[in-house]
């Protein structure tokens, strides 16, 4: 099923938490541009996306690479209506109310070859991140 334009779609994580609503404005090949309205659960991971934007704007590509793995470890996906299946997404970037992501092509097993090791690493990194954020301030 292709992604619908101008309809509100829930963005969910690996635990199926609703992180917010996505309204797709345009699709260019595998790249999707949309608007993003955060849900309360987004607050837990918002810093990852904010740091990502800051690092990219500073051309800090080593840090972008680490954050990429952490964000990928979130297991982000779009919630399809009952009975439908949306394609998998990756390279999710959120900031200033805008979301972009890429759509896995049909026939992908869900993980491009160069990313085969990413989820395991990301889970580990994310665990450390969450443990860190759990610490009392």
């Amino acid at each position, binding site marked *: 099923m292709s992604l619908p334009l101008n309809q509100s779609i829930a963005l969910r994580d690996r635990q199926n938490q609703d992180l917010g609503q996505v309204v797709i404005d345009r699709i260019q090949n595998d*790249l999707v*541009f949309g608007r993003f309205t955060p849900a309360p659960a987004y607050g837990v991971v918002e810093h990852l996306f904010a740091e990502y*934007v800051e*690092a*990219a*704007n*500073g*051309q*800090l*590509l*080593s*840090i*972008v*690479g*680490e954050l*990429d*793995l952490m964000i*990928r470890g979130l297991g982000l996906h779009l919630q399809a209506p009952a009975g439908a299946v949306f394609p998998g997404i990756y*390279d999710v*970037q959120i*900031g*200033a109310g*805008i979301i*972009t992501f890429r759509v896995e092509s049909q026939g992908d097993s869900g993980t491009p070859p*160069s*990313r085969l090791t*990413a989820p395991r690493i990301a889970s580990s990194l994310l665990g450390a991140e969450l443990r860190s954020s759990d610490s009392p301030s």
Partner: protein
Amino acid sequence: MAVETPGAILPDTVVHRVGGGRGFNLRLKPREERLVPPGISVLLGGTATAAAEQMRQAFPDPHKFALLHQLADCVGSTTAAAITQAGFELLSDPSNKFSNHARLTHADGVAGFSDANLHRLSLVFQDTPTPRS
């Protein structure tokens, strides 16, 4: 993030610094000072135009990434050999998004990125305008 050992990059490899090779764009930012080893990001291979476009494609939203898209209007290019001759080193540091990413470092760490050393480094870069086509 771990990087590969020096020497993995051939001397004639073309090296690009998005934003140009002037001193202020080669200076370490605070988060780069904390990397091990400290260093700035460069892209290996291809043309200056391709490096700029690679950055735009990787971070496609021109609003969120306005600063980076502005930087991508100019790319400084040199070779790995010239960087070595200027007293700096290159370490391969590929990522999922940038398989051609490398880190430009100095044997003296943060102290190696002094004004005098950066001036010497800037002389080996040639800037090319790379506006979005």
